[in-house]
């Protein structure tokens, strides 16, 4: 079995003391930021990117990945105990999780979230390991036209499946693509849009944009809101064990959530957030058994399904990144950045050129999930204590870590000025209702898209029909067009808006 061979190589890499240590650090950090509302994995990974320079690439990626899926575990704790989503993907967990806590069943809710996540994480990792090699094979058949079409599909998919205004999201992508072009053009050597500033000829730092938009932009808009009265349920978390009936109710929900989450994670624009929404919607559609608590009043399925789904989704969203080199969401865009600073070009060749990295990362996810169950269930008390720290002590620390992170990217104050500028821009985006995630995706893909478009048209001697005459490329573009058409149909449009306005 090739799969077992690969996985044993991976576990060999992941089970070294240094990689176990960084996996643990990543999981702890992930849980930490997951528990704390107001700071997400995007800002955290951006902050820590510079700090991973000194590490070997495998350890760096293992740690950063741990932050992402660790945040999915931590987010549920806050959702259940405080009725605030610690992570955006835990929004739906609040609905039933908090009601369970109010009825004194916080323990079973936390256990359902933790165990469901663990199961989903294991399945997600296996799917990743099984599907990556065949997809990589396919990716080697891709020419520039196919890559351009694939990126178009990826970007369109990212906004179609996300919430908010479609037009604005597409405009944000284009803005990201344009910002990605700032700097020296690799073909002609012309410095574009650099205003004769030497620092700009290298392009805008990707950490700068991520940190400005996601870090500072969000801190400022959090501060603008009056502090919520937080009601933390700490007393009722004594018995963690769910009852037999709970297990009976949650098992099918976990299975459905895992399946749905894994499928949605692979899609462009998918990942944890969408998976959780879809899983909750599906559970609500399922019949309620007699004697079961209705949804919205503390049904354990309403906790188990979205939590399994968001964890499965966060694992499988690594598939497009690792096989095609195309990030399906903002966190994966950061992983592209992480790979590039370690001189690894993301794409299908990673599996053959860096097999230790590829399989080591996958194996570490399984280990990380096991660590997270331990971190989140028996040690839940520590995280609950954290929830009592007021935001006024947290945000100066976050501002500080952003500033240190930005400075240490290049040991240059230029980046510190730039992040200030992007902080202001980020807050303006919040005020104008423009989501920054598509911009970051566009920013990462901008140079790649231009390069592939250039090559495709060079090969076809300027004939644009190359994109529709090559079957794979035509198929990918057709799907992209279809997605836009479907979403703009009035019936679907209303449903889409409804799905994201789950109270």
């Amino acid at each position, binding site marked *: 079995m090739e799969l077992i061979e690969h996985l044993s190589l991976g576990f060999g890499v992941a089970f070294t003391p240094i990689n176990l240590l960084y996996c643990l650090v990543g999981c702890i950090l992930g849980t930490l930021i997951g528990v704390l509302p107001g700071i997400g994995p995007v800002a955290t990974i951006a902050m820590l990117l510079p700090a991973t320079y000194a590490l070997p690439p495998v350890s760096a990626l293992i740690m950063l990945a741990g932050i992402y899926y660790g945040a999915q575990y931590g987010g549920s704790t806050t959702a259940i105990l405080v009725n605030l989503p610690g992570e955006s993907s835990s929004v739906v967990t609040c609905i039933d999780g908090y009601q369970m806590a109010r009825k004194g069943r916080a323990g079973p809710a936390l256990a359902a979230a933790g165990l469901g996540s663990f199961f989903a994480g294991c399945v997600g990792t296996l799917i990743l390991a099984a599907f990556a090699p065949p997809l990589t094979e396919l990716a080697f058949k891709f020419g520039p036209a196919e890559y351009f079409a694939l990126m178009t599909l990826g970007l369109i998919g990212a906004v179609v499946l996300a919430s908010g205004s479609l037009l604005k999201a597409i405009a944000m992508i284009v803005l990201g693509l344009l910002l990605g072009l700032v700097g020296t053009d690799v073909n002609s050597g012309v410095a574009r849009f650099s205003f004769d500033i030497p620092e700009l000829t290298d392009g805008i730092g990707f950490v700068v944009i991520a940190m400005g938009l996601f870090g500072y932009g969000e801190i400022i808009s959090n501060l603008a809101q009056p502090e919520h009265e937080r009601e933390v349920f700490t007393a009722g978390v004594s018995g963690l064990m769910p009852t037999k009936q709970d297990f009976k109710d949650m098992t099918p929900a976990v299975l459905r959530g895992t399946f749905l989450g894994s499928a949605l994670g692979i899609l462009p624009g998918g990942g944890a957030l969408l998976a959780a929404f879809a899983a909750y919607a599906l559970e609500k559609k399922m019949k309620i058994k007699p004697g079961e608590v209705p949804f919205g009043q503390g049904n354990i399925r309403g906790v188990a399904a979205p939590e399994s789904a968001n964890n499965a989704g966060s694992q499988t969203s690594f598939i497009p990144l690792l096989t095609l080199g195309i990030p399906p969401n903002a966190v994966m865009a950061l992983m592209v950045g992480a790979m590039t600073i370690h001189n690894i070009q993301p794409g299908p060749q990673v599996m053959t050129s860096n097999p230790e990295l590829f399989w080591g990362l996958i194996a570490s996810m399984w280990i990380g999930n096991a660590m997270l169950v331990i971190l989140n269930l028996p040690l839940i008390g520590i995280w609950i204590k954290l929830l009592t720290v007021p935001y006024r002590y947290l945000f100066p620390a976050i501002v500080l870590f*952003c500033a240190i992170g930005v400075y240490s990217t290049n040991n240059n104050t230029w980046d510190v000025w730039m992040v200030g500028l992007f902080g*202001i821009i980020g807050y303006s985006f919040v005020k*104008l209702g423009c989501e920054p995630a598509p911009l970051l995706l566009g920013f990462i893909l901008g140079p790649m898209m231009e390069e592939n478009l*250039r090559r495709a048209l060079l090969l076809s001697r300027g004939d644009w029909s190359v994109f529709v005459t090559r079957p794979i490329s035509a198929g990918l573009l057709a799907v992209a067009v279809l997605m836009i058409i479907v979403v703009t149909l009035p019936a679907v449009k209303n449903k889409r808006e409804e799905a994201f306005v789950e109270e």
Partner: protein
Amino acid sequence: MHIKSQKDFFSGLMFMGIGLAFAWGATTYNVGTGARMGPGYFPLYLGVLMTLLGAVITFKSLVVETVGGDKIGKWAWKPLFFVIMANLVFGALLAGLPYFDIPAMGLIVAIYALVFIASIAEDGWKFKATFILATILAIGSYLAFVMALKLQFPVWPAFITG
């Protein structure tokens, strides 16, 4: 003319402005043709596309009815100013500004300044609590970033270390 969605109206204008700026900037480079793309080709068309998107968004904001007018709401000037200021002062103190002959004061001084300035952003900050927070963060950052991760920072003011 009545603006039905304030957020969309102004974001549409913003996209149009930025799109036009990029497209105009792109024409100063060699645009070329599809088969032989110059450095201006891709940004020019993206700029045009973004301008069009901006125009549609603005148009829709004047036509499509929204609940409550989709108001932008008050700008939180105070947090915006102090958070960004804390960041800028941190940069200036950490490495100095050679252009203005401001010497580097190093990491520790910069951390205290950042924590104090950022704290002002929220109402009801207290000197003692902020001072303790800054001290904890200074010691923690020194241990984590300078000792453990060995990142290259000027730690102490330049006139002390020479």
